[in-house]
Every structure is written in C-alpha cells, then in structure tokens.
C-alpha cells in the first residue's frame, strides 16, 4: 500500500500550553481513519497543522512523499489535500449553486476568470452531480442560510471534494447534526468517498460512527496519540477507555456502586 501522509515529531505549543506533542502518524492510500479524543486532546490542532491552517512548532509533515510543512491551504489543495470544517465554512449570502460554481472555478485554474460568468453549463452539470450524490439537490437554488445544519455539513464536504483531492480531512462531520440524521449523513459521505476512492481522516466523538465507518483509529489525549490501531483494539484499550471514551470510568463507578 502506498503511503500518503506521514507526520514525524509533530508538535504545537501555545506558550506553555501543549496542544500537540510528538505526533508520529503514517496513513496509507485508501484508509478511512478515525481520530478520537476528548475536548482539548489535540485532534483539531493535528488536522489544522496538516492542512496548513496552523504552523507546527516542530516536526515534519509529508504528503505523497514530499514535505508540506509551511505550505498554505491553497498549495495543499492543489497537491490533493482538502478539508471540511467543524463549523461549515460557507458563503451564506450566496446560493448553493454559486458556492459550488466558485469552488469548481477555483479548482479548474490558478487564475480566476474576470469576464466569464461563474455559472457555466459544465460547472452547473458538475454541481448538480455532486448535489445529487450528497442528496441535497433540493437546496440547489436556495441561499445557504435556508439550509438546515445537516445539509450545510454536506455542502461543506461537497465543496472540499470538488477540489478533486486524494485525501480528505473531515473535522467532526456529524457535530451539530441530530442523532437521527448522523448515520444518514455519514452513509452519504462514505458512499461518495468510496466512489471517488479517497483516503479519509476524520475527527469524531460518536463511537457508534467510529465503529461503523473506520478501519483504523488514532486516539488522542493531552496532545499525544496514545493508541493507534484497528477499531476494536483501540476502543477496547484500557487507557483509551479511561482517557477518551470514559467507559472504564463508568464500569468502575458501577462496581463501586455494586460494592456499596
């Protein structure tokens, strides 16, 4: 299997605060990797460093064999690394079709067109295709403000996919989405991911989703990766249960209550 992302000794400090420390991760092409951890564990910091949003304090990052540390979002996107956000980053005052048309225009050329309308027949067709794949065609001509949260999440991910990435980083794709909608949303996203043969790394708090969709898990605590491996192995690990999922603590509490 081809290695697509490798980080070595990746750390980020904010003064005396350690947001991420000595993260060594290797991801191979086609993997679906889940990132878990409690709030402040360093998951988003890790994603932000890999996607050029936050410069690392130390360490190296390589994408597809070449170093990418210090590259900004634009260059990373052109290399094939794309992302979505915990809070969807959309243009609320533009229509869904304009959001997508602009993303398509940006992915086609480094230089933006000045006189050609952003909505071309080819772009409209491509936008319709991704909207259909994401199941949000009904919002095509609506302003983003008219969309519910789940649909906004899907649009955010659709925009990330329009850059034709090889790897997609999703920051909490189901946060803010109702429990009923979560699985539907993830089913839709994973269907498109499979069709496009993407490598995916996604941050998630819901263990049901982690168990269902990922093949490998990175468990974060206090800015470090405390466990990296197959889903069941990581989720059954005592340290992960104690620091991340909280299941061990629940068991202990039950035992103490039983003793009493």
């Amino acid at each position, binding site marked *: 299997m081809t290695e697509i992302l490798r980080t070595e000794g990746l750390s980020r400090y904010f003064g005396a605060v350690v947001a991420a420390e000595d993260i060594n991760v290797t991801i191979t092409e086609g993997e679906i990797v889940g990132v878990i951890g409690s709030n402040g564990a360093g998951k988003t910091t890790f994603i932000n460093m890999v996607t050029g*949003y936050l410069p690392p304090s130390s360490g190296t990052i390589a994408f597809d064999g070449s170093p990418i540390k210090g590259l900004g979002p*634009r260059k990373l996107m052109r290399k094939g690394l794309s992302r979505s956000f915990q809070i969807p980053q959309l243009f609320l005052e*533009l229509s869904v079709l304009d959001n997508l048309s602009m993303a398509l225009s940006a992915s086609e050329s480094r230089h933006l067109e000045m*006189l050609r309308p*952003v909505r071309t027949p080819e772009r409209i067709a491509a936008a319709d295709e991704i909207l259909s794949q994401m199941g949000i065609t009904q919002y095509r001509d609506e302003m983003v403000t008219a969309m519910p949260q789940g649909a906004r999440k899907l649009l955010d991910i659709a*925009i990330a996919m329009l850059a034709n990435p090889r790897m997609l980083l999703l920051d909490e794709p189901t946060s803010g989405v109702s429990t009923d909608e979560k699985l539907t949303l993830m089913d839709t996203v994973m269907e498109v991911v499979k069709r496009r043969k993407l490598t995916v790394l996604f941050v998630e708090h819901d263990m049901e989703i982690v168990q269902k969709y990922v093949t490998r898990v990175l468990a974060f605590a206090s800015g470090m990766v405390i466990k990296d491996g197959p889903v069941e192995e990581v989720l059954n690990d005592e340290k992960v249960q104690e620091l991340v999922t909280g299941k061990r603590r629940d068991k202990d509490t039950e035992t103490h209550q039983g003793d009493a």
Partner: protein
Amino acid sequence: MGLQKSEIMLVLAAAAITLLSFVIPDWLAFTTTLAIASALVVLGVVLLMRAGLVSFGQGLYYCIGGYAVGMGGRFLGINDALLLIAMGVVVTVALAMLLGLLLTRYREIFFAMLTLAFSMILYGILVKSQNLGSTDGFGVSDWTLLWFDPDGGKGSKTVLWLATAVGLVVALFLNRYFGSAIGLACEAIRENEVRVEYMGMSRRQILYINYVIAAAIGSIGGSLTSLAAGHVDPTMAYWTISGEFVFIALLGGTGHVAASFIAAMIFIMVRTYAVELFPNSWQMILGIVLLLIILFLPKGIWSLFTRRRRVGS
C-alpha cells in the same frame, strides 16, 4: 458571448442619455456628466465594498485622474481627451499596484484609515505645490476628442457624450466582472476568507486586483470631471470628497452597476437643490437623506428594484 438583459438595459440607457443631450439645457448636461464621472469613482468604492472593504481615500485616484488631464495639457502639450484619460489611468495603476501591496494586508477600519491617509498625503503635496496653483489649482487646457475639435473643447455636450461612452464601457465591464468567478470571490472574501483560501483562491490576489481596478476607474472619473469642469484643485483628494463617494455608494447599494449611476445623479441633484434652497444648512439635508436611506433601504436604492421584482415573482 452575447449581451445579457441588464447589459442591454445599460446600452439603452446610454443611448437615451445621448439622445436627450440634444434637447436638455447645458446645466443639466453638465450635471449629468458630473454624475457619470462620480458614479465611476463610486463603482470603485462599490467594488471594494463587495469585498468588505471601505475606502475613504478614493479621492486619491480621482485627483490623480483630474491632475493628469490638467498637467498633460499644461506641461506635456497633450490635448486629446482619450490620451489624457489614458495617461491618468497609467499613472494611477502604477501607484495603485504599489499601494495595493500594503493596503490589501489590512481590513476594516485600518484599511479605511490608510486609504484616507494616502489621499490626504496627496492633498498636502498639492497644497504646497506653487507650480500647480496650490490651493487654487489651475485651469485645464482646451482639449480635443480623437483630434476632432467639435466645439473648442469646451462643449458640455461633447464631454457628456464622452462620459456616457466611457461610463458604458466601464459599466459593461464591471457587470461581467461582478458575475465572474473573481467578482463572486469578492463577496466570498467579505463573508469567509478561510473558505476562500481552502477553495484554492488567493484572497490577497483577489483584493489586489480589485483595488487596482477600483483605482483605475476612479482615475477615469477624475479625468472626466476635470474635462467637464475645466479646472482641477487639491480638494479632489480631500477626505470629504472621498466621503461623498462612500455616501453615494451607500445610497445606491452594491446590487447592480446601474445603482451607482442612479445614486450619483440623485446625490448631485439633491445637493444642488439643497445648496440652492438651504444655503446654510444643505449638509444637514444630505445627512437626513443618508439617515433615511440607512433606516429604510439599508441595501441602497437598488433594493427597491429587487424588492419589486421579488414581490412580482
């Protein structure tokens, strides 16, 4: 690439102005010319506003355009209006390309204050320049249009035709620009700079291009004003003039290129009549008009048309 509906409307409006110029009095032709010239500068302000930036220093380029016309005729012996306008644009673009490198790093009040500061620097230089008439400025030499001298270069009709033609070209260009990827990206920058970068677009490059275009059309507005007025003076760079352009931009809104032309005409007419009727309190009249616009039409006069269309549909 045929003409869009709104572009046909712009062409018809320009044709109507040209036809009306044969029957309207000279004072109205002059006022209309000033309105078109101001509208061009305002379109530059609107261009920046769409990207979330407010320039209180567009007078800088308005003044450079005006002085290019004055100085070209006086010191270089260039008398053709189109050459004089082009000269102003070249000087303006060169300066804007330099200042844009700095200014596009800033946002909000910092951008506004820096643009104001640069225009006031030019004002200060001109006030101290005795050769350029200091605070009095100087008169513009007689000019020709394509080396044709229809009425001794002083005719209010000729300059109105020129302003209409130039205004139409700029309006058609901006109409396309607003609907293009880069034009839409400006609105996107105003809303969400992070996503713009993650889409693979450079927000600084977009703002830079926007800034230079805004400066260039500001210069054209200044050149047309000086050709019409036959005089230039340092107040063209003064901050209150830049403030007027922002005022007109708010009055019209950013919804359509035509809004700036309509708003400029309304502004100049209101100001003319306010000065005539209330010579000591005309500024108060303008202030009340702005207040009413902000209260009842926060998206400018153009929202009246879009609102009616929405109600109709």
